[in-house]
């Protein structure tokens, strides 16, 4: 178990694709959560989010502003991370190499998912650090207030981000296991994140009342409601208040547990080809 964890940690940290994903997340996060809203507030014309103004990109709003990406776009990158990390074993045929060294399938998966959980925390902390630097730079440039939210609010925000980020990586991991590979799992994962979720909340839910109530039980709206309850600006894609904070946390956590359990059962039962 400890050995599996160490092995997975080496595999994660030495994989260039992981760092590429993190780099893209930071660059896009900085662009869409800070640079564009800042330019919009100072120089732009009246757009749909212009009224949020400068306040949204100052240190005081850091929790909501950095969390806003998790329901869709940061979430999509985390799904890709989960798929790559688990589906790659199928793609390279490496399961047999790993398992003939002796660890049980359960131990390998436990090591893998622990490392993914840690990676999700690293991801959330990196995004938060980016937000800190960006908001301080903006505050300095605009001569605005540099006060951050309370330590409790920050920790709660990081915790919520970590929970959602972990849930999405587990979604990717279970897709990799179910589809035994990377390509189809990434494709379908992204279709779900970027297309289906949108169609459900924008198209189906307003038309059909039962879809509207059912979507409250889906992971995306759960994540959207959780970050919205912590101050993420409604209007960011995927951020919506269909649930209050408590139930939203339960929904996200339930999916996390469900994905792990499903992955473990399927991996244990199937033949390794």
């Amino acid at each position, binding site marked *: 178990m400890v050995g599996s964890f160490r092995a997975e940690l080496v595999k994660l940290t030495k994989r260039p694709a992981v760092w590429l994903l993190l780099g893209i997340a930071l660059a896009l996060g900085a662009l869409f959560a800070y640079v564009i809203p800042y330019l919009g507030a100072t120089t732009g014309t009246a757009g749909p989010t212009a009224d949020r103004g400068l306040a949204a990109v100052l240190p005081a709003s850091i929790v909501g502003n950095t969390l806003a990406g998790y329901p869709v776009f940061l979430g999509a990158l985390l799904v890709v991370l989960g798929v790559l990390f688990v589906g*790659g074993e199928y793609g390279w045929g490496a399961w*047999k190499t790993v398992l003939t060294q002796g660890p049980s399938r359960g131990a390998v998966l436990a090591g893998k998912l622990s490392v993914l959980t840690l990676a999700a925390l690293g991801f959330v902390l990196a995004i938060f650090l980016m937000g800190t630097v960006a908001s301080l730079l903006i505050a300095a440039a605009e001569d605005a207030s540099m006060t951050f939210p309370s330590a409790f609010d920050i920790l709660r925000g990081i915790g919520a981000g970590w929970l959602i980020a972990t849930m999405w990586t587990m979604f990717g991991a279970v897709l990799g296991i179910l589809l035994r590979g990377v390509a189809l799992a990434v494709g379908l994962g992204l279709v779900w994140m970027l297309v289906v979720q949108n169609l459900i909340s924008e198209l189906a839910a307003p038309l059909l009342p039962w879809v509207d109530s059912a979507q409250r039980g889906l992971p995306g709206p759960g994540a959207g409601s959780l970050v919205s309850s912590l101050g993420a600006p409604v209007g960011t894609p995927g951020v919506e208040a269909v649930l209050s904070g408590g139930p939203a946390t339960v929904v996200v956590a339930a999916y996390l547990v469900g994905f792990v359990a499903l992955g473990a059962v399927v991996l244990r039962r199937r033949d390794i080809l």
Partner: protein
Amino acid sequence: MEPVVCEKLTKRYGEVVAVQDLDLVVRAGEVYGFLGPNGAGKTTTLRMLLGLVRPTGGKVLLHGRPPGDLSGVGAMIEGPAFYPYLSGRDNLRVLASYAGVEARRIDVVLDLVDLAARSRHKYATYSLGMKQRLGVAAALLKDPTLLILDEPTNGLDPAGMADMRALIRRLGAAGSTVLISSHLLAEVSQICDRVGIIARGQLIEENSVAELRGAAGLRIQATPVEHAASWLRLVLGTAAVTVVDGGLDVTVDPARAGEINESLVKAGVSVSELRPRERDLEQVFLELTGGESNGR
């Protein structure tokens, strides 16, 4: 405790019966050759031994235990599979962590397969033969008492094949049990104590290499051949002599070659060639397996 015991082992993939009622015992300390044409069920059997594939029926015991506990067992199944973005050494480092093996084994096995010089290069840049060697190195990490290798000489050049055979012979001599699969009887015959031949999922022959080669005898070229044949039939019995391709195949202890030569010469026959006769191993193999692959 026998290292490998299969009883009535069966694996079905839908319609396809990959392995059927296979009884196989590999004894401690022997090098066992597991032979069969393409699609015969070799890899499937080895996967079941290692617990990668669940049998449809029958039983597998490794060191008397059901598969799952692989301590002391090293294996490479159907070609090497590693992480392309890691170096050969880092790949082994990762696997050593899974296996709970100390890191210093890594240098030992890299030397064993002659890969130390390139160990810091990325796996993706390795040639086919180097990948194969890394696969064998990984199988040796645990210093296994039972080593299972699925076509280990695949993709190796002649020197590499010779090295591999020497390595396997060394491991066998050191007391390890080795189970090695191959398509080529001639290849494993040089290193194996016993050979099992599988075709269409069933074990059709299990024997020592010497016995597989079959009845020994002499091959004689002589003139006039008819005269020689009738003389030898008189001396050795009608059944012992057949005329093949203008020469004689004689079933007799090859140690009697001198005596037979002398008697032929005395009978007025000139002997131009006289040598021990062995059945050609590949011929044996083709006869036993029906001469075709089971790929279908």
